């Protein structure tokens, strides 16, 4: 009896989460531009999508920014975590405190503050400013994932390597680093997701002439939604779903999400 209630509840939430997406996907095949009338099945919007340079550019921008920002954030974040292990407790707390600021602060404050910075320094807004902004809010995610793992690692293994004659660098890369990799990947994935999804910070730091997917859609909403966007949503959803299925074949790597 209890089981039935539980299943019903799960299904209801499930429907709540996926019905809107399903509606979009259905509309992406709608020949009529109207959102309420069905005008017949078509793949027109999907083809338009591919030839729509605006959307393609925005898509590429989004991916490129996310990739590069994640790369830098992961590098800087990991190096800093390693460095922090050699610092006093007090310094560590202060640094972690500062790192937490972009996470705790509302996106709008982060975005505005960076915009003020760029304007004051007379840096023209565009790809570079957005990149810097993304790196800034990505680093905390990496550090928040790597730091706890760093603390957990048993120093004896590192010391054993030194004892056996390895240089500090070799000892580190051969004993500590492999242990860190899951946390690094976890943090990087988190950062990548945040970058892909970001709207507000990008909005304030992009200026005009540069768009990511999020900002493009926001502009479109003002003008009136083109069905290509629905086609885009459908594609993104399928891609994400595929990723989910692939990742689920490696259950250990999934652990990162549940931290």
């Amino acid at each position, binding site marked *: 009896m209890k089981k039935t209630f539980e299943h019903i509840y799960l299904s209801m939430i499930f429907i709540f989460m996926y019905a809107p997406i399903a*509606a979009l996907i259905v509309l992406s095949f709608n020949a009529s531009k109207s959102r309420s009338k069905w005008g017949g099945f078509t793949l027109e919007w999907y083809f338009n999508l591919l030839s729509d340079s605006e959307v393609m550019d925005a898509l590429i921008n989004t991916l490129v920014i996310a990739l590069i920002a994640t790369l830098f954030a992961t590098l800087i974040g990991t*190096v*800093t975590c390693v460095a922090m292990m050699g610092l006093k407790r007090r310094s560590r707390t202060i640094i972690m405190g500062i790192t937490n600021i972009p996470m705790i602060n509302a996106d*709008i404050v982060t975005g505005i503050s960076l915009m003020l910075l760029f304007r004051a320094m007379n840096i023209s807004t565009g790809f570079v400013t957005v990149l810097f902004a993304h790196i800034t809010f990505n680093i905390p995610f990496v550090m928040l994932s790597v730091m706890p793992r760093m603390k957990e690692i048993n120093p004896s293994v590192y010391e054993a390597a030194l004892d056996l004659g390895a240089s500090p660098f070799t000892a580190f890369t051969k004993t500590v680093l492999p242990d860190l990799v899951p946390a690094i990947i976890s943090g990087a994935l988190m950062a990548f997701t945040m970058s892909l999804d970001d709207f507000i910070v990008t909005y304030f730091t992009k200026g005009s002439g540069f768009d990511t997917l999020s900002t493009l859609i*926001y502009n479109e909403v003002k003008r009136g939604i083109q069905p290509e966007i629905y086609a885009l*949503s459908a594609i993104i959803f399928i891609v994400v779903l595929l990723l989910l299925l692939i990742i689920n074949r490696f259950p250990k790597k*999934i652990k990162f999400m*549940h931290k």
Partner: protein
Amino acid sequence: MYKKGKTSRLMASPYLAWAFIFILVPLGMIFYYGFTNEAGSFTLQNISYIIQPAYFKSLLLAFELGIVSTVVCFLLAYPLCMILADMKLGHHEFILTLFILPMWMNFLLRTLTWMTLLERKGVLNDILSVLHLPPVYIINTPAAIVIGMVYNFLPFMILPIYNSLSKIDDNVINAARDLGASSFQTFLRVTLPLSVPGIISGITMVFIPALTTFAISSMLGGSKVLLIGNVIEQEFTVAYDWHLGSGLSIILMIFILANMIVSAIADRKENL
């Protein structure tokens, strides 16, 4: 432990420089702009604007909607997490990911879906007309914004609560039952208190974004429903009054700070 102080400091300096330039200085600039006027002299005028009816209303509305969304998210998420935490190993990880999946779609797209559903000539009204029911005009009302907020932020409530619940040792629950507690008493006296860290985390991750959003209110509220986020955004992009915008942002940060303090206190109570 690993490296001597000097090397560590060297290694950490790139980030320290970055953090200074891109976190601390920008924050400082908000404070600078917020507390000065066009002429550059100190003023509290920007901050005091919040008292003005139009501005105050937007803050109040954002606050109300934020609380409503947070509560709704909590009420929806908690039972879900309890069900998930109870399920067999392996199974629940996949189902959990299924519920988190929408989070990986674009935030704007997620909000867009509800626009499509709730519009005057949208899918919802379409379905209602097929069933010969009167249409509902939810779009451009606070209700639509709440729906959008809940839809977007629900996964952020689910994850931390689920983490908290799954960490509870089975035998602790068994112990409560062993000592005579009914299922309900066990829930109230043991499960719920032990899940508080997750609840607090979830509340923070939902309330702050809800309070400060402008995209959701823009898309689902039209120009009719203005939240503090919209107001601040307009000060910057439309009115070009950076001082006022910064001043209002400072007000927002006070709320964020208050939330942090409340969380920290509740957290410390747990760890006593």
